């Protein structure tokens, strides 16, 4: 378990090595990162077993007072600053192994491995193949550091690093203006949240005197921080989470991030990096739990985002963008769950969604690779040319729609239980609405591209290499089986809730009533979706004309992009113009050029005494000497 730090470090080393290696052989560049992450997976499995079986016997492992589970800390000294005794900052470079970091790191490693193997086929013959794999290695390394960090400083560094990798990979095809713009947009929008996170971290340091998470939690526990301060810190940290996890109103970058290569979308913008916000809230859960306001705020933001994004997804015509909106919606669902005290449910859904959505994105990558088209209106009857991909897509879609026995079902049901138990009827009804819309958009994404009649002939469709099918089959198997971890198997295994929990271990509480209602709602949405998208009944055309205005609003994505653009044009730009004017006039013209000009003026006035005539200098010297002599005489007599 102590060697866990090797996993990110190996990938970090792989980053520069791959850059150099790709100069030698571009098409073999994948070897180093794939093996790095493969070794990482082996170390991970070993550490997981060690943790589960004999974790509590290690010296570094102790019972975490907040989560109640065993958490193992390994740290070395990093740097010290300040005066010992008074203002002293002793920062350690440490990582923590507890159920949360193990779960999220496991998701990251498995999906990264699958995506990197898949990319061998997908990115083949790309001129920057080596660079792609280098940044992938850097990304997975920073993601694991983010997950493992036990202090906020290290977490923040990794947080920015994953943002950088996201930027680099969204803008991977930087010849396209749209990719360039999307990369800049993603970087700028997440930066808004990151500023909040940074201020929050500095506020923690100011008030607690340490960057360590455990120091913060014990300060909260001992009542050192008052309620308002906790809420403010929680809000600032949540701002960072909102930016990274694409929550309303910062969700605008994620759909545009689909300009990057599809495997990147699968890994970074579906499974791992966007889940970092959820992870951050879960990691600092003691902070959020002690502020009722923040819990409600997290739940409300999550629910708003979930429903809003699901509605946009319902009318999205681009396959990848639709999946991106679905990702936003599910991240909102995770935040809703966290806001409803459903800690276990949120992380379970994070994992289930991560595997399922990676599967969906990679199948979308297959579609794109094969027919080079993303507009679902131009697709149809894809099952005739790519049956395996169709089946894999259906598995992923059904899992996220919450069909029983697939992993999405267990986590969604668990979230519903938390909502029912901890929030009012409004939340429950809206969540049910969300379940309905999720089912509807998933069936739409299955029916329109993969079934029905094809609108184009797929004569020039490319064949899919094997390397682009097998990783998907592995992911599909995980999607099938992962959810079973949630439930209790007598004699073999105690449920996921016994492994990862907040406060006290919990069994999986499958509420049959809620499960059946959710299932009925989902099946109803499937039926309606079938009637609407496959049978194309007239009544839906009527509904569409009646609801033309709201649908227009949804199709325009609630004008949030336009709103941000307006803010930039009307507030940011005048402000920056004013600042640049002040800078030019006062700082530059008066502050810098002014003194220089004055010196110049004085110099040109003074230069007239330099005549160049030698007797003038000599005469002045003699006069000066005479004056000095006379003064001396006068003084001495």
């Amino acid at each position, binding site marked *: 378990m102590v060697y866990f730090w090797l996993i990110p470090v190996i990938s970090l080393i792989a980053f520069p090595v791959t850059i150099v290696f790709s100069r030698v052989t571009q098409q073999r560049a994948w070897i180093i990162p794939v093996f790095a992450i493969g070794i990482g997976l082996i170390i991970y499995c070993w550490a997981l077993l060690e943790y589960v079986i004999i974790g509590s016997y290690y010296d570094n492992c102790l019972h975490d007072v907040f989560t109640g589970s065993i958490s193992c800390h390994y740290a070395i000294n990093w740097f010290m600053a300040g005066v010992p005794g008074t203002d002293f900052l002793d920062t350690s470079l440490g990582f923590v192994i507890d159920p949360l970091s193990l779960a999220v790191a496991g998701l990251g490693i498995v999906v990264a491995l699958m995506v990197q193997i898949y990319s061998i086929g997908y990115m083949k013959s790309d001129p920057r193949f080596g660079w792609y794999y280098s940044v992938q290695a850097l990304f997975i390394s920073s993601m694991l550091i983010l997950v493992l960090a036990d202090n906020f400083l290290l977490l923040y560094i990794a947080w920015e690093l994953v943002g950088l990798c996201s930027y680099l990979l969204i803008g991977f095809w930087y010849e396209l203006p749209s990719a360039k713009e999307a990369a800049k947009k993603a970087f700028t929008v997440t930066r808004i949240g990151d500023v909040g996170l940074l201020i929050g971290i500095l506020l923690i340091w100011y008030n607690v005197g340490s960057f360590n998470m455990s120091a913060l939690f014990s300060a909260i526990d001992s009542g050192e921080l008052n309620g308002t301060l906790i809420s403010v810190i929680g809000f600032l940290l949540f701002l960072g989470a909102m930016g990274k996890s694409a929550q309303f109103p910062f969700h605008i970058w994620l759909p545009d991030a689909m300009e990057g290569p599809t495997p990147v979308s699968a890994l970074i913008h579906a499974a791992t990096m966007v889940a970092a916000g959820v992870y951050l809230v879960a990691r600092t859960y003691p902070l959020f739990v002690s502020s009722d306001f923040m819990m409600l705020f997290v739940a409300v933001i999550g629910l708003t985002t979930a429903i809003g994004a699901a509605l946009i997804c319902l009318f999205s015509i681009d396959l990848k963008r639709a999946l991106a909106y679905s990702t936003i919606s599910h991240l909102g669902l995770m935040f809703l769950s966290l806001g409803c005290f459903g800690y276990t449910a949120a992380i379970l859904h994070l994992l289930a969604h991560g595997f399922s959505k990676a599967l969906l994105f990679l199948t979308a990558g297959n579609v794109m690779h094969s027919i080079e088209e993303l507009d679902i209106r131009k697709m149809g009857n894809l099952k005739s040319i790519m049956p395996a991909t169709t089946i894999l897509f259906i598995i992923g879609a059904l899992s996220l729609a919450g069909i029983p026995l697939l992993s999405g079902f267990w986590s969604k049901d668990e979230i519903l239980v938390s909502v029912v138990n901890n929030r009012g009827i409004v939340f429950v009804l809206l969540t049910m609405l969300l379940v309905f819309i999720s089912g509807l958009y998933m069936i739409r994404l299955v029916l329109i591209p993969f079934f029905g009649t094809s609108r184009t002939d797929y004569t020039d469709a490319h064949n899919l290499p094997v390397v682009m099918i097998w990783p998907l089959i592995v992911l599909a198997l995980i999607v099938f089986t992962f959810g079973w971890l949630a439930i209790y198997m007598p004699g073999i295994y105690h449920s996921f809730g016994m492994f990862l929990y907040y406060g006290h271990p919990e069994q999986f509480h499958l509420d049959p009533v809620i499960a059946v209602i959710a299932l009925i709602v989902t099946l109803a949405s499937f039926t309606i979706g079938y009637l609407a998208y496959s049978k194309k009944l007239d009544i839906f055309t009527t509904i569409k004309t009646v609801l033309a205005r709201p649908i227009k609003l949804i199709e325009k994505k609630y004008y949030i992009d336009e709103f941000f653009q307006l803010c930039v044009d009307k507030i940011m730009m005048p402000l920056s113009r004013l600042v640049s004017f002040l800078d030019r006039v006062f700082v530059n013209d008066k502050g810098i050029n002014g003194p220089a000009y004055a010196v110049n003026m004085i110099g040109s006035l003074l*230069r007239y005494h*330099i*005549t*160049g*005539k*030698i*007797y003038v200098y*000599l*005469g002045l010297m*003699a006069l000066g000497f005479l004056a000095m002599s006379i003064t001396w005489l006068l003084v001495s007599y």
Partner: protein
Amino acid sequence: MVPLFYINILSVLLFGIGLYGVLSRRSAILIIMAIELMLNAVNINFVAAAAVHEGSGMFSNFDGHIIAIFIITIAAAEVGLALALVLRIFKNKSSVNVDEFDLMRW
């Protein structure tokens, strides 16, 4: 023995003549000659001072004489250098009028 004060007056007069020569002449050669005059005024002062203020014992106060000899030596070297400079200047400008050499002016 002539009192030191008279010799001082002589020295000051000689120095004044030298200074006047330096300030009023335009020819570089004449300026050099005037400078020599000023140096010799100083020499007279030194030698006189050394002669008047005798210490106890022989050769006890040779400071003034030694400095005078030094000054004579350095003046000889300086004249050599200065005449060489004047020669170069004359080759460049065909004139030794110092008013024409104001290149260091703004």
